[in-house]
């Protein structure tokens, strides 16, 4: 399965980005890593060019907050991305924040899986579970 990943916005957390890349590969995904400082349009465009089924965006220190608001409207401009699984993870707010507030907010932005301050492997387990449920027909996009 193809995954496009990268760090959104003006964010240079390259170590986390590399760890995500390696962890995805270790689980058998074909990874297209756009690296740090990536714009939303580049993520969606990469998904179109590669035919990726998953878009995994990472972010630290709340950088995603501003960009997240644009996700729904930008994704609507693409005609063939309805089935793209949208994942975001990292520290999704400035400071610590409360997952009970943050997760619904990002789901409302258009993400299927939101991993706020969650261990990387736990987040990837959530992705696998989501895919299994979807394939079994229990998770509709």
């Amino acid at each position, binding site marked *: 399965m193809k995954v496009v990943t990268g760090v959104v916005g003006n964010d240079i957390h390259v170590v986390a980005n590399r760890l995500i890349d390696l962890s995805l590969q270790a689980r058998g995904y074909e990874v297209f890593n756009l690296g740090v400082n990536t714009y939303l349009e580049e993520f969606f465009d990469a998904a179109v060019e590669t*035919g990726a089924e998953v878009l995994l965006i990472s972010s630290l220190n709340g950088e995603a907050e501003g960009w997240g608001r644009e996700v729904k409207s930008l994704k609507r401009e693409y005609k063939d991305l309805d089935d793209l699984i949208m994942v975001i993870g990292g520290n999704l707010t400035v400071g610590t924040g409360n997952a009970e507030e943050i997760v619904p907010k990002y789901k409302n932005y258009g993400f299927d899986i939101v991993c706020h301050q969650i261990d990387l492997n736990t987040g990837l387990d959530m992705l696998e579970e989501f895919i299994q449920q979807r394939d079994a027909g229990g998770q509709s996009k």
Partner: protein
Amino acid sequence: MNMSKGKLLIDVGSTYFKVCTQDHLEQHFRNFNKSIHDDLTQKCGAIIDKFDKQDIHICSSANGGLSTLIIGVTHTFSLKYATNIAFNSGINIIDTVLYQDIEEASIPSDLIDVVIVVGGINSRGDVFAEPLFNYLKGIDYSNIVYVGNELDAESIKANIPNIAVLPNIIDDRLHIVEEELKTYLTNLYQQDIMGKQDIKDLYDITGNQIYSTPYIVNRTLPLVDAKFSVVNPFILLDIGGATTDIHYSKDLVEDNIVTENEFDRLVFKKLGVYKSRESLIFAAKSNEFVGELLMHLNVTENIFADHSDKATHILMQLAIFLVLCKMSNYHQAYINLKLLAINSIVLTGGITKVLSQEEVEDIIAFFYTKILTSEHRPVTIMDTDYAIWTLGSAS
């Protein structure tokens, strides 16, 4: 003039001929009622007769460039990469179409010289289908090339007659692969020049291959340092009758994705002071600073309706300003050059025959002050005797 002994160099531009011997240079305004061959032999026959065919070298930019339509699946990758390669091959882009919108896209009415179809990495198939084939049926084009994913290549070949299929310009890491398409487009440009009957006739005069002028100028750039007191980095502006070419070293570009050559080139097809006069005026009227510039030059917009020498003077000054604008961050274009980092601006082409050094420096100063709000003043060098193209063609 730096040239080999015993050679005659001829540049056929859209507006002027330039003819150069070892110790003599002359230029002639073209007579558009005659073929290039007849016009050239009538005006310069005496000089031409003195040289053996093997010692005569001709270059030309009189074809005006190629028009291109690029159909790609994203702005960030396929359209951007193909556009970049086309620009660097001397091609003039006229349009791009995003494939997902192709069914609503307008059909170009003019003949397109080359259509480029691109999209998807090689493991991504089923990108292109009926909507592409239907759209292409409505277009009048001379050449078409496919540089997209491998999986769609068979279906593309089966459905689009005479399509050339080249390796994908997007590799499996989403990086650009430029060389094959660049070679194809460069050859097409060369063939277009050579295929023009007007140019074919010139083989009566020369026993050597006729090259495109931009190709010759690009060969010159590494030599410019030796010929002129140029301080690197520099840009070269060739403002002619039909087009404006900008040659620049690639370290002046932040988003540099073409890797092969030291120098790149951009063409603004409709920015010339004679054949493209109307579109230059249109571009000027759309620029918010032009009013202020005209005031600075002590003229009004009425000058656009004028055809005097003074009007040509003003248009050439405007052309310099507009080209610099197009290259700057003020105008979010395909490429923005680091104009604050350049130390020299070299000007060549017909413009050097009309404007004085002071007039050019005045415009450049206006641009840096108004647009870049900077006191930076690159050194201006005027190639008044066409040494740029004689360096290239003699080398």
